[in-house]
C-alpha cells in the first residue's frame, strides 16, 4: 500500500488527501455535525466574552473598536450596576436555599410515602413548569396588587421578588431531588436501622449524605435560574433593579461593555461549579 502511494504523481496525492478528508467526514458525519453544533452554541458566548474587552465609541457596544482591560478593571463604574448585581445575588441566595428546602421535603414525601392526593400534588408541581413565564409574572403581580384591598398591603420590592423566585424554583428543586431519590437503595437505610440506629440518626447519617449531591445540584440549579430570571422579576420588582432588569433598561438606551463583563463572570463561575460537580461525580463513580 505504501509503495502505491509513493509512486503516485503529485497531483493525485493532493486529490487523495482531499478524498481522505471526505472519507473521514463521511465516516464521522455525526461527529463533525456535533462539533459544528457546539460551535454554534458557543458563538454568542464568544461574542459576549470578546466584547467585554471592547473599547466602544458611543453608547452601544456592537462593533469592535479595539482591546482594553478597562471594562474589567472598572466593572462597577456604570451607575446602578453594582447594586443590581448585589440584589440579584441576595435574591438568588435566599431563593435557592428556601426553594431547595421546600422542594426536598416535597420530593421526600412524593417518593417515600403513599398518600391521598399524590396526583394533585404532582400536577401542582408540574403546572408552574408548563406555564409561560409571562403568565406566572402577571398573575403573581395581580395578587400583590389586590393584596391592599384585603388589608394586607405588600409593596413591590425585595420581598415580592424573593417570593416570585422561590415560587418558580420549587418545582425545579422537586424534580432534581426526586430523580436522585428514585434511584436510591433503601437497603442502606434498613441496614442502618437493623444496626440499631433510630430514624432521625438514619436520616442524618445515611439518607442525607446520599441525597446531598442532589440537594447541591438543586441549589445550584435554583441559583442559576434565579440569577437569570427577567420576566417574572420584571412584573414583580416595582422600582427595584436586579441585574437582568438593569440589562433590559440598558438595551434601550446604552449598553456599556460592563454588562458583558458581568455576563462573562457569571458564566465563568457557573461553569466552574458545573465542572467541579462533573469531576466529583466522575470520582465518586470510579470509587464506587
Amino acid at each position, binding site marked *: 500500500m505504501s509503495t502505491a502511494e509513493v509512486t503516485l504523481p503529485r497531483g493525485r496525492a493532493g486529490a487523495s488527501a482531499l478524498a481522505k478528508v471526505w472519507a473521514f467526514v463521511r465516516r464521522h458525519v455525526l461527529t463533525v455535525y456535533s462539533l459544528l453544533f457546539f460551535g454554534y452554541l458557543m458563538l454568542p458566548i464568544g461574542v459576549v466574552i470578546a466584547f467585554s474587552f471592547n473599547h466602544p465609541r458611543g453608547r452601544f457596544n456592537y462593533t469592535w473598536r479595539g482591546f482594553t482591560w478597562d471594562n474589567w478593571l472598572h466593572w462597577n463604574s456604570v451607575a446602578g450596576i453594582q447594586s443590581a448585581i448585589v440584589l440579584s445575588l441576595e435574591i438568588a441566595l435566599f431563593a435557592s436555599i428556601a426553594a431547595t428546602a421546600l422542594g426536598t421535603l416535597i420530593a421526600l414525601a412524593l417518593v417515600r410515602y403513599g398518600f391521598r392526593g399524590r396526583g394533585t400534588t404532582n400536577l401542582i408541581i408540574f403546572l408552574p413548569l408548563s406555564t409561560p413565564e409571562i403568565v406566572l409574572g402577571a398573575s403573581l403581580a395581580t395578587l400583590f396588587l389586590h393584596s391592599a384591598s384585603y388589608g394586607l398591603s405588600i409593596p413591590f420590592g425585595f420581598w415580592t421578588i424573593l417570593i416570585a423566585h422561590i415560587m418558580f424554583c420549587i418545582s425545579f428543586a422537586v424534580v432534581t431531588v426526586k430523580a436522585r431519590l428514585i434511584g436510591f437503595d433503601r437497603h442502606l437505610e434498613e441496614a442502618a436501622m437493623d444496626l440499631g440506629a433510630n430514624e*432521625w440518626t438514619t436520616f442524618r447519617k445515611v439518607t442525607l449524605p446520599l441525597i446531598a449531591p442532589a440537594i447541591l445540584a438543586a441549589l445550584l440549579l435554583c441559583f442559576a435560574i434565579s440569577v437569570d430570571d427577567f420576566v417574572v422579576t420584571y412584573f414583580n420588582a416595582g422600582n427595584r433593579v436586579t441585574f437582568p432588569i438593569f440589562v433590559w433598561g440598558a438595551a434601550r438606551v446604552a449598553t456599556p461593555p460592563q454588562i458583558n463583563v458581568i455576563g462573562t463572570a457569571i458564566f465563568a463561575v457557573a461553569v466552574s461549579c458545573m465542572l467541579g460537580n462533573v469531576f466529583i461525580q466522575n470520582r465518586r463513580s470510579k470509587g464506587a
Partner: protein
Amino acid sequence: MGFAFLHRHRGSTAYLLLAPGMLFLTVFFLVPLGFLAYQSLESGSIDFGYAFTWSWHNYSGAISGYGKQFKRSFAYAGIATVIALLVSYPVAYWIAFRGGRWKNLLLLCIVAPFFVTYLIRTLAWQTILSDNGLVVRTLIDLHILSPGGRLLATGTAVVAGITYNFLPFMALPLYVSLEQIDHTLIEAAEDLYASKWRAFFRVTFPLSLPGVVAGTLLTFIPAAGDFINAQLLGSTTNHMIGNVINSKYNELIDYPAAAAMSFILMAIILALVLIYARAVGSEKLTG
C-alpha cells in the same frame, strides 16, 4: 420505610413534609391565577381604577384586536420548536451513543451557554446578526440576501433567537430518552437484517419518542409566551402576544386586557398540548 414517626403516623408525615412547599405554591401560584382570572373580567380605566363587572368583552377584544400577534406567537414558537428538534436530535444521539466517558462533559457544553444571562445572550445575537456584521455580509455576498437586506428586525432573527434560547430544553430530554435505550434491541433489529436506517426508524426513534414529546413541549410552551426575542431582535411587525401582554401590563397599566390575553394564551397552549398528547399517545406525555 424510613422514619419511625412514619410507622406510627404513616399518612400524616407525608402531609407534614408536603405542607410548607405546597402551601407556598397554593398561595403564590394557584391563588394568583384565580386573581388573574378575576382581573380579566374587570373593567374601568387607569384613572378611575378597575372594578369587577363580568366584562367578557376583554376576551373578545383581545382576540379581535390582537389575533395577529396570537397567530404569530404560535407560528414562531412552532417553527422554532421544529428547527430545535431537527438540529439537536443528531447531537443528543451522538452524545448518548458515542459520548462514552465524555458524556457528562458534553452535556455540560450544551448547558454552559445558558449560564450567560438570557438577555445578554440575546444581545449577543443582536451583535452577530447586525447590519454590517459578518453573517449579513456573507449572505449578501452569496446573493441569499439582497444588497441592503437585513436580518435584524425580521421574523427570521426572532425565530433564530427563540430557537437558540430554548435549545437545551429540547436537547436534554432527547438525550435522556436516547440514553435509556437498550442497545441490544437495536442490535437485534440489525441481526434480523434491518438496515441501519430501518433499525433507527423502527426501533431507536420510537423508543426516543418520550424525549421528543417532552422536548417539544418544554420548548414550545415558553417560546409561545416569549417577548424578549421579539423585542430585541425583531421590530414591531414581529411582536408576539407576550410583547402585547407586557406593554399592556407594565406600560399601559391595562390590567384586565393583559389578564384576558394571558388566559387566552394559556387556553390555546393547553388545547394544543391536549391535541398533541392525543396524537402521540397520552402515556408518552407522563412517562
